[in-house]
Every structure is written in C-alpha cells, then in structure tokens.
C-alpha cells in the first residue's frame, strides 16, 4: 500500500533549530522540502534568506575519517565474518561530541603516519632511480666528481651501441694524440665510456665526440666512487624501509580504535544530514520556515513533538496538482516487502497509482521457482536466506534480497519437486555409482518431466502467462472503477475479455459468435475518444491490431519453459561429467564446482527474466510509475545499529 502523505508547514524560532531538527531526525518521518525556489520571488527574497547553518568542518573530517578507516583496513584488515551483525550503540553514544573530539586525534595521527609513509616511498623511489643510473659505472674506480687536473680533462658519457670504445679511439686518433679512452660498461642501449684528454686538444676532441653523438653524463654533487655511492644508497634505502615498517606498525597499533572511527564516521554523517536539512530552510533573523512531507500515520507523533516548542504549524493533504512531487513510501507485510527490490529496479509507483508489491509477489516468486526449478538449488537459497536474515540483521536492499532468497527458495523447492529435479539427476547417478542401482525417491513427487514432456511444460507456461495478463487487466479495471470510470473499465477491459473468452469457446466448441461479439465490442468502443464518426470507426478497427500485442505477450512466457530446460540440462551435464570419472570423490569435486557455477550464472538470468515478465507484460497493463522515494531526515548509519 502507498502510504498517505501530509504536507507540514512550520514556523519556529531560529534558536530552536538545532534541537528541533535533531528530534525530527530521531523520529525519522519528515522529508524536508528545499525552499530555495521561493527566493527567486523578489517579494519574498527581500525579507527571507537561507538559514545560515555553519558546516563546522564536518564534511572535511568525515572524508578524513573515511580515508583513515580505509588506511587501517589496508594495513590491518578487520577480522570479521560475512555473517557478523553490526554493533549496537545507544543514540547518546552516536551523538557524543566527546567521541568526535577523541577520535579526531586518532584520525589525524593515522593521516600523519600515512603522509610520512608517502614521503618515504617517494624518497625511496628517487633513490632507486639514482642507484639504477649509477649501476653501469660501478667498475669505474675514479671518484665521480673528479673532472681532471690542471692540464687534463676527464669526461664520462654514453654512446650508441655501434660507437664502441675502439671506434671512438680510432676517430680521435685522426685528430689528436693526447687522449685515452676507457670502456667502463655496455648494455643493449648504450656504451658507458670515460675519455681523458689534454686541454690543448679540447676543441678537436669535442668536435669528434659531438659527431659521434657522445652524450656527457654529469653526476652532480655526488662524491666518491660509484661503488661507494651505491653502497650508501643501499644503506639509506634499508633505513627508509625500516622507517616505513615502523610507521606501518604505528598504524597497526591504532587499529584498536577502529570501532571508534566507524562510530565517528556514522556520527559525522548524521551531523551532515542535519546541516543538509537546515540548508533547505528559509528564515528571517529570528524565525525559520520548514516545509516537509510527513507520513500520515506519524502526524500525531510529529504534533506531540512540535507542541513542546514555540512554533506555529499545520498539516495539509496534498492537492492533486502536487501529486507528482509527493514522495512515495510503500508499506507492506513481511511477505510482500522484499518485492520492493523488484519494484524499485523498475520505478516506484506514482502517488495516485497502486502499490505493485502484493500484486507481483505471487507471480514473481512462482516464475523464479519454475525457472530455477531445482530442489537442491532451492534448499541452498533458503539456507543462505535464513542464515543472512538471522545472523546479519540486514537493512535496506540487503534485507529485501534476503527476503527474496527465502521466498524464492521455497518456490524453487516446490517447482523442483514437481520436475523431479534435485541438483539435476544427482540422486539416481549417485545411487548408481554406489552400486545400488538407479533409484530416485523423488520420482514419486514428479508431476512433469521437462526432458521427455516439454510440450506439456510449454502449454503450462503459456497458461500461467495468460493468467498473469488477465489479472493485470483486472487491476486496470479496478483502478478505472476506483477513479469513477466504470464505463471505461467495461469498454477497455470487458471487450477484450469477451474476445478472449470467445476465442477459447471457439477453439473448444467451434462456436464463434462470442468471439464475433467481442470483436464488435472492440470496434464499437475503442474509437470513442476520436472526435469524428469516421475517426471513431477507424480507431475501433485499428484497436484489433492489439491482438498481436497480446499474442506476443503470452508467447513471451515461453521463456519459463526454455529456462527450466536449460537449468535441468546443464545440471545433468555436470552430473554426467562427474560420473564419467567413476570415482565418488572426483564426482563430489566436479559436482560442487559445477553446480556452484550453474547456480551463480542461472540466478542472475532467472532474476532478470522473472522481473522482466512483471515489467513488460504485467505492468504494461495497469502500472502508473514515476514516483520518487521518500527520503526522510532520519538516523542513517553504516557501521552501527542504533538501539
């Protein structure tokens, strides 16, 4: 059911703002409407302005805290199982300033250590690069900063691989005598060479070197030999490494504060959402104005709260022209609530529409059950669902998901029993392997064998489809009657039903006048909104083309049968592969891996195909979508559960 909404208009004292928003947050049933559009009106913007809500660095600290938690989780991952529930804390603990102050210090320390590690890592990679560049000069015993004597120059450099020391020597010999060439090293890209020459022949030597594209290497301020330098760099790197691991240890020590940081993140998130709400208000110097949507059943609780403050307020029902803006909250029982996940994936209903959850519950779960169609798979889903529900205490989408696992687990078990399928044909194969002969106690439950009797399955699928389409049309008729248009219901739904009934009677008994009456009803009524008589007739005749639409809709349900076949054949292939090994242990390995894969890949397809049949074939008949979700100001935590 779509929860009715009331529009709250409230004037209150600016000095009460923080306390009032805080209490509204704890109630969690008011969505604040942003008022900034009103400021575009010049007559209002003179006297009103946005309420000034100082941020107090919450956002900055929130992102720092999130980063700190990420760093902690990187260096000291939390030991937790996937089925661990969230920690419970009291509201006063969540909203304690003392906690934020205390944790802020820890957060800043983690940030400091992380920054130190980053600096050290940058220094380490600089040193690594330097070491790499010195490595080729290791066998040079001269100190790196020795550039010559009064009359002699020493020059280190690199040349292309083709210009070896011999080539260099030959070329230099053509222009000068007072020189020497020392090959130091060579690799695939270049030769490392030192040239010593007398200053008297400098210009001749230099021009030869230039021509041979000898590129000079300068070692900057480095002193000592290459080898000494490399040793020193290695010592530095070792000390940096030690320091990094010390810093890492310090971060690990801080991991005892993890729970505090998580609580702090949640606490800051609440402050931020209160500030976000405050920024949607309008105010003068002493008074503020709040407009919001309140769920109608909570009107009394909000009234009780507001009466404690100096304020003026009223609740109003939304006017029809406001319907597109009214947020949507769905209220369901435990069986239909999980279907919110399916509904939200499409779109929430419009305020004047209808809550589809109870309407898709039976169809979605049955379709899922049929297409997944295996007792073993169903049992696995059911166990997973129950485990997650009881251990995890999930909320939101995860809660819907566990609910769906349980519901669809049950329907899958039932459908699997009807198809006589338990992990494919695992039971007879295992009994055969154990030397007991082929035995299958599930055969007693089997209603239909998809492998040998697929036509029965196909007809069954199409009949289920026809039922869903007729129910969809009935809902449309109900909505039309509810909105005071019973004639439209009769013409748009009744005429089609007459035609369908006529086709059924005609096919079974060979009497066709009911179908003809249905066609006549369609031709006479479907063009009734057209202004002219010829328009009405053409509109009526054109509507008969919709028959192909209904035909296509019903055929679309053939996918139920095809996916049953796919699941059971793949199951059988896995079991067959396993039994070919002839060894029960190898069979178990193939069985677990194969069925695990099959379940994982099939569950996505099954979910989407079940959902799609609701969206296109079913919703198309009656659903008015386009609602936006109700997002009240409320305590919304990620890591802790508020008691």
């Amino acid at each position, binding site marked *: 059911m779509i929860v009715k909404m009331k529009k709250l208009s409230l004037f209150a004292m600016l000095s009460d703002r923080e306390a009032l928003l805080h209490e509204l947050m704890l109630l969690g049933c008011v969505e604040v409407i942003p008022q900034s559009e009103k400021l575009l009106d010049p007559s209002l913007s003179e006297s009103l302005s946005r309420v000034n809500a100082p941020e107090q660095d919450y956002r900055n600290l929130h992102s720092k805290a999130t980063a700190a938690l990420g760093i902690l989780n990187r260096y000291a991952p939390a030991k937790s199982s996937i089925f661990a529930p969230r920690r419970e804390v009291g509201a006063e603990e969540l909203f304690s300033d003392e906690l934020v102050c205390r944790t802020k210090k820890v957060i800043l320390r983690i940030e400091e250590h992380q920054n130190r590690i980053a600096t050290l890592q940058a220094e380490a990679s600089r040193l690594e690069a330097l070491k790499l560049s010195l490595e080729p000069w290791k066998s040079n015993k001269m100190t790196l900063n020795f550039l010559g004597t009064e009359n002699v120059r020493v020059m280190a450099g690199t040349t292309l691989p083709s210009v070896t020391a011999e080539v260099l020597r030959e070329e230099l010999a053509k222009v000068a005598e007072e020189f020497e060439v020392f090959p130091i090293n060579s690799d695939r890209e270049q030769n490392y060479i030192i040239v010593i020459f007398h200053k008297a022949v400098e210009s001749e030597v230099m021009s030869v070197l230039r021509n041979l594209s000898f590129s000079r290497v300068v070692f900057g301020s480095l002193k000592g030999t290459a080898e000494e330098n490399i040793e020193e760099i290695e010592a530095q790197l070792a000390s940096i490494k030690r320091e990094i691991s010390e810093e890492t240890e310090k971060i690990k020590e801080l991991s005892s504060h993890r729970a505090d940081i998580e609580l702090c993140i949640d606490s800051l998130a609440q402050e931020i959402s209160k500030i976000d709400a405050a920024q949607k208000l309008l105010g003068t110097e002493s008074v503020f104005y709040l407009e919001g949507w309140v769920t109608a059943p909570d009107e009394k609780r909000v009234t009780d709260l507001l009466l404690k403050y100096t304020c003026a307020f009223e609740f109003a029902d939304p006017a029809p022209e406001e319907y597109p803006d009214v947020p949507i909250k769905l209220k369901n029982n435990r069986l239909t609530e999980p279907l919110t996940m399916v509904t939200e994936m499409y779109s929430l209903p419009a305020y004047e529409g209808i809550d589809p959850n109870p309407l898709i519950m039976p169809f979605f779960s049955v379709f899922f059950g049929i297409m997944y169609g295996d007792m073993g798979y169903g049992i696995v889903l059911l166990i997973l669902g129950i485990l997650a529900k009881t251990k995890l205490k999930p909320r939101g989408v995860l809660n819907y998901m566990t609910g769906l696992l349980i519901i669809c687990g049950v329907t899958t078990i039932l459908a699997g029993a009807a198809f006589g399928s338990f992990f494919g044909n695992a039971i007879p194969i295992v009994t055969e392997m154990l030397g007991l002969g082929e035995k299958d106690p599930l055969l007693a439950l089997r209603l239909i064998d998809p492998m040998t009797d*697929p*036509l029965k399955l*196909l007809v069954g699928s199409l009949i289920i489809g026809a039922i869903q389409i007729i129910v969809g049309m009935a809902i449309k008729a109900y909505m039309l009657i509810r909105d005071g248009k019973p004639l439209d219901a009769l013409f748009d739904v009744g005429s089609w039903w007459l035609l369908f009934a006529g086709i059924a009677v005609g096919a079974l008994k060979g009497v066709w006048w009911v179908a003809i009456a249905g066609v006549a009803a369609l031709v006479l009524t479907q063009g009734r909104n057209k202004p002219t008589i010829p328009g009405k007739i053409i509109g009526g005749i054109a509507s008969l083309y919709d028959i192909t639409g209904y035909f296509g809709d019903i055929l679309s349900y053939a*996918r139920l049968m*095809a996916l049953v*076949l796919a699941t059971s*054949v793949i199951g059988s*292939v896995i079991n067959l592969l396993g039994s070919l090994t002839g060894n029960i242990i190898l069979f178990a390995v193939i069985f677990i891996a194969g069925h695990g894969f099959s379940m994982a*890949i099939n569950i996505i397809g099954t979910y*989407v195909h079940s959902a799609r049949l609701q969206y296109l074939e079913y919703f198309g008949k009656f659903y008015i979508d386009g609602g936006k979700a109700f997002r009240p100001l409320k305590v919304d935590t990620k890591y802790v559960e508020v008691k």
Partner: protein
Amino acid sequence: MGLVLAFLGASLAAALCCVASAKGTGMTGEAATGLLREDPSQFSKTLILQVLPGTQGLYGLVIWFFALLQIGVFAGNIIPLTLVQGLRVFVACIPMMLGGWLSAIYQGRVAAASISIIAKKPADWSKGIILCITVEFYAILSLLASFIMLLNAID
C-alpha cells in the same frame, strides 16, 4: 553419413553459440576494464552485465546435449541414423546455431554500451540489464524451436 550430419549440427550449435558468447562477454569485459580503472567499486555491476551474453553458450550446450541424447550417445548405443534422420537433426539445430550466434554478439554490444550507464548513472544501471534481456529473448526462442524439432527428429 546420417550420424556425421547429426554430429555436425550438434557441434555447430555448441561451437557457434560458445564462440559468440565468448565474443559478447569479451566485448563487455573490455568495456568494463575501462570503467573499473576509474571506479573499482562497480565491479559487481559490471560482472553481472558481462555474464549476460554468456547464456547463449549454455543454450548451445543444451541443444548439443539434447541432440546427442536423441542419438543415444549417453545411453551407450549410438543409433545408426539414416541420411534423412541425420539431416533432420542437423536442420533442427539450425535455429540455435544462428539465433544463439548472432544474438550473443548483439547482446554483447548492448551490454558493452550499458557499461557507460554504470559510469554515468550507477543508480540506473538495471535499465541496461533490461535492454540486454530483450535481445536474449530471441536466443530463448531459438532454443525452443531447436528443442521441439529435436524431440521428434529421429522417429
């Protein structure tokens, strides 16, 4: 000769569908890596989109299995098919070969394009799934057509 034709049909159904599924999932995977480089947290969504064009390979395997089942390979005594019977099995496999082959590639293209929905509007990514499933339906119809023809191909 009949047996050769029947085997040819079964192998082509499995092979073409698997190759095309590999192509479809491959395209989507490539597109996904581009997004994951920027935002690794979207991994589960991209994975779901990636496996969608993978189902045609499974459907191809279903037809392969069913054809071999009809020929009696798994029962241990292969029926010596006449030329006409073998040709019937081959023809029955044609819808799956072509339908699975082409639909997996086109579905892969839709899935790869849907990765960009995750990049821009992560909340609306499920619409991409629906678009993919629209293509998949035709692979399902092909599976049905082949399957029903195979049922009576050897009688």
